[in-house]
């Protein structure tokens, strides 16, 4: 395999890995933060 092809393949693998890592981090870290949260207080009596 020519050196230029190997370099291109290595770069493609690197980009793919970075893309999945970035997407995974977004999903894992930010998923719940997309949802608003609100605490609602109450007592156990009507």
């Amino acid at each position: 395999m020519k050196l230029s092809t190997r370099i291109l393949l290595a770069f493609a693998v690197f980009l793919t890995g970075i893309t999945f890592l970035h997407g995974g981090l977004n999903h894992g870290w930010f998923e719940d933060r997309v949802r608003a949260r609100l605490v609602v207080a109450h007592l156990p009596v009507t």
Partner: protein
Amino acid sequence: MTEHSTSGTLFESKRYTNFPAVIDDIQAGNLEAGFLLAPLAMVLAREGSRPVKIVHLGHRDGTCLVVPKDSTAQSFADLRGARIAIPHRYSNQRILIERLKEQYGFLDDEVELIDFPPPEMPAGLKAGQFDAYIVGEPHAARSELEGFGRILHYTKDVWPNFISCVLVVTQDLIDTNPALVQELVSGISASGEWLDRGPDDQLMAGVYLEGDALPERDPNAPGGAGREPLVFAPGAELGTSARMQAAQIGGMYYGQPPKLLEYVLSKPPDRVKYTDLSLNREDFAEIQRYAEELGFFAKRPVTAADPFGFDDYCDPRFESGGQRPLPLRPLAMQEER
């Protein structure tokens, strides 16, 4: 959905043991929404350090005046000279007692009112610490079911459409995120409609019948994704009705016997009501009249120069926002397993 979420807001229910703690957290900026006694909410709107507004009711009726089972009292008229426990000096239960005093021609000192924690009222009645108590459910029904108490009056009979707790949110939240407030009110309205008029052949998400195949992890489990799914057997009387399901859910969350909550939600069927929860000017005008007469606003009296009215403590705009669809699934799907 809100503009901040494509999946719907996560509403976390936080249980408190007393109303002052709720108010303290609101004032300190640690809490933006909660259920409070209606007159207490009005006092907070009038005198609190953080502006708040009532945006919806919690329910109607659902309060009872309870006497010992062997009491000879047949109506409030027989409680002249009695010592009556109330949940809070700024409660509609206190205002109801005042209405009854007016109706039966009592003098001011012909009943003695004492503040008493609602969960401890049944024991207090049994121990003879007072002659009667008035409180929201399920603490009235507890005395009945334990065999030593008797309902003297249901509020539905002496003050129809009685208001006890109301939903309060901070003005900050209304101003910065009205869509979220709308989502909250729409959800509560839909839940109330389900409780009072929901179909008997649909199950709430996270609720299962005995014998159903249970999911390994149910994000819709009542109480949160980490909780076990709620499994129950249809009741003899309530079957799989919305109220039966609500009794199971409430029992799990409050740690109270589902049978107690089933009783509250069915004996009689109109003991407590979760529909017709819109804010009504006439209702609040009456509450405010009594609140002023009883000195609830003593720190900042209502005067012509410093008026106070419905629009100062209520924001009804969210009630026209419709109801959110609830995560219900047909019961028939269970029979296909």
